[in-house]
């Protein structure tokens, strides 16, 4: 595709509900990243995939957060038993390369999650 596509664009979840956020990276991009961005703050790294392998998940805030990329393209970020502090924008980004310094990553528009 022309860019990184994320869905849903907006999601309102009741506290305790499970949510799934989808990311379609740019076609052919090897690396995929998920970030969480709270209001008024910069993006915070959550996890990183190289193809289907999840090479780093050190930024996931708790075991309620789970990400997968089973075929090395589309990725899903799942949040179980959502809590109010999970309210944020979830950004997906992709890159041709492995994300080492000097590589450019391209972001999607984000999925806005509000937990009520």
């Amino acid at each position: 595709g022309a860019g990184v596509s994320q869905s849903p664009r907006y999601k309102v979840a009741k506290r305790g509900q499970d949510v799934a956020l989808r990311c379609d990276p740019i076609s052919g991009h090897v690396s995929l990243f998920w970030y969480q961005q709270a209001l008024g703050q910069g993006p915070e790294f959550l996890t990183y995939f190289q193809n289907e392998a999840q090479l780093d998940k050190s930024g996931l805030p708790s075991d309620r957060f789970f990400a997968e990329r089973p075929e090395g393209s589309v990725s899903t970020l799942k949040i179980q038993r959502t809590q109010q502090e999970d309210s944020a924008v979830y950004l997906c980004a992709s890159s041709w390369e492995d994300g080492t310094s000097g590589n450019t990553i391209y972001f999607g528009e984000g999925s806005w999650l509000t937990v009520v």
Partner: protein
Amino acid sequence: LAKTTQPISMDSYEGQEVNITCSHNNIATNDYITWYQQFPSQGPRFIIQGYKTKVTNEVASLFIPADRKSSTLSLPRVSLSDTAVYYCLVGAVNTNAGKSTFGDGTTLTVKP
């Protein structure tokens, strides 16, 4: 972990040149410096990237002194549409190669 420091906010007027400086005292030898722009309700957008000296593209210039402990993003003749948050990112986004963070960015407000 390469930490960056930027001014929280800056104001400018249309047609002026804007310079935003980022401090990164702990930059590593292999680290690049990348600037992103973010509008409300959108994801960050790549502006420019450099390693040393000066880099220029169609939208901005990036000045990096010899010690690389800081960098300056220069936006020539800004317009109202340049109002956005600007992030300085040092190092890799892949934590295998050295984690970097976006910080809280610099909110640039361009006034008519």
